[in-house]
């Protein structure tokens, strides 16, 4: 008895599901017809009516239905068609605007990445260091000065040279920054860079590696009394380029925001590569932080010949 009640309940459910599906399909078809009606030009509609009248004049014709269809479609088109057409057009326009705004957002994100980058604190401290070195160690002062110029050239938007979008160029400017930080932090900062030569000419968006490195130093290593090390590695993994910045600094504060920098990298990666690129942030169990950018590997095919 109970068994049968269950089965009939199951049947009722299945029937209800079927009815709902039929309803959904009917409503979808109706809206498709309505959209068509709203958008179809009057001339085409007249031709269709004319053909309908012709068919209904034959012995098979269902003239009652034909007349009903003509009256109904005329009424709908006159009463609601205009509004619906405007709605459809507005939706299409907004899709198109979405594509345009994507381009605008990329430009904005790139500008933000470049403008926000030179931190006054970094600049003033470096200039103070150069001032001191001029008195005590002029050759070292000249070296830091050169590094600072290279860093600014790559960072300030109006100075950014064309063709800086390779991993090699990005590494060069990061090296300049790291050399300055090493001169300031001395033994508190150890740096290792491990990037295969053939990856240097591969395309890599500007100011991403730099943001990861500055984050590692600012949030991981500068606040750590004994300092630490930063490791920069790159490799190719099944057509994907993997660029990694690790530090053994103070690690994460889960209540501190991820800052403008990381969010900017994420946003630009999404606009440039969609779902094919990724920014991963990890907290290794032995401490510190690891940031990884994965994006499609685009080697420069002319690089080998040029080199």
């Amino acid at each position, binding site marked *: 008895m109970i068994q049968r009640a269950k089965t009939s309940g199951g049947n009722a459910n299945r029937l209800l599901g079927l009815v*709902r599906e039929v*309803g*959904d399909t009917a*409503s979808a078809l109706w809206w498709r017809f309505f959209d068509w009606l709203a958008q179809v030009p009057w001339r085409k509609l007249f031709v269709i009516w004319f053909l309908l009248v012709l068919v209904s004049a034959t012995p098979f014709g269902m003239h009652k239905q034909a007349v009903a269809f003509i009256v109904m479609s005329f009424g709908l088109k006159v009463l609601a068609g205009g509004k619906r057409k405007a709605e459809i057009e507005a939706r299409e326009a907004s899709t198109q605007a979405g594509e345009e705004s994507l381009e605008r957002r990329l430009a904005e994100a790139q500008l933000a990445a470049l403008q926000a980058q030179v931190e*006054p*604190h970094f*600049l*003033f*401290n470096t*200039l*103070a*260091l150069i*001032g*001191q*070195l001029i*008195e*005590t160690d002029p050759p070292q002062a000249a070296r830091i000065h050169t590094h600072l110029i290279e860093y600014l050239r790559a960072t300030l938007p109006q100075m950014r040279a064309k063709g800086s979008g390779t991993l090699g160029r990005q590494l060069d400017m990061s090296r300049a920054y790291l050399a300055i930080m090493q*001169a*300031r*932090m*001395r033994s*508190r900062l150890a740096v290792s860079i491990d990037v295969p030569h053939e990856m240097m000419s591969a395309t890599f968006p500007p100011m991403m590696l730099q943001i990861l490195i500055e984050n590692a130093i600012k949030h991981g290593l*500068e*606040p*750590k*009394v004994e*300092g630490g090390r930063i490791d920069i590695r790159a490799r190719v993994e099944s057509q994907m380029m993997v660029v990694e910045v690790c530090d053994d600094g103070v690690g*994460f504060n*889960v*209540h*501190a*925001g*991820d800052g403008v920098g*990381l*969010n900017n990298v*994420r946003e630009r990666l*999404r606009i440039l590569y969609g*779902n094919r690129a*990724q920014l*991963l*942030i*990890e*907290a*290794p*169990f032995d401490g510190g*932080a690891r940031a990884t950018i994965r994006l499609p590997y685009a080697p420069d095919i002319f690089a080998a010949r040029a080199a």
Partner: protein
Amino acid sequence: MNTTALRGRALIADDEEAMRAQLRSRLHEAWPELEIVAEASNGIEAVALAGQHQPDIVFLDIRMPGLSGIEAARMLFNRCHLVFVTAYDQYAIEAFEQGALDYLLKPVSAERLKTTCARLQTLLGKQPANIERQLSALLLGRPAASAAKPEYLRWIQAVVGNNLRMISTREVLFFRADEKYTRVQTEQSEFLIRKTLKELADELDPDEFWRIHRSTLVRVDAIAEVTRDLRGRQMVTIRNFGEQLEVSRGHTHLFQQM
């Protein structure tokens, strides 16, 4: 004033060695009788060395690891005269001027240092001013450490293989209770975490994430539209993502004005 009164003892705290050397040599020119008794390379060391050497004057860099110059100052102000040193700190400089605290800008200019030294010489042997109030105001007002603002959870931790992934709350589209776990959905992937939806709701910024259902917390920014289905239930559509989320009856008021 006799000459022995001019023989002050000072401590220099700065995390950059070159900057300590610079201040030391400038001080030597401006005030040859001043003895530098110790140099510290972070805030903790500064406090320890000050306790050990009992200097009359401490020069404190503001940005140092361990303890910042201002935090160290709070532990030292009633024992010695303090001078802050900074290369750039717009906020602190304003506060110093309002609170009449002594400060130097890097690179330290000989002129400015001469004024500071003259002032310090008149203060030698006197009780240091009570600057606790100014220092507390300086600590509280600093944008980096505003204690008054509640601290919301900004990173979600999820174990992925042998690693602890850090997911910024800005990446999360929604959280969904999923039996024993909570599913964290981002545009690119999903993670399971042990934190319950209730814990998340308590720790996350309530302006950033809304509870729309007993088992769903959604990021407000990620909502593309709210529609009604055939049965009259409110459904939330997530931007750039296929899944629709149901709004339970108790939470429909969230979208009344929309």
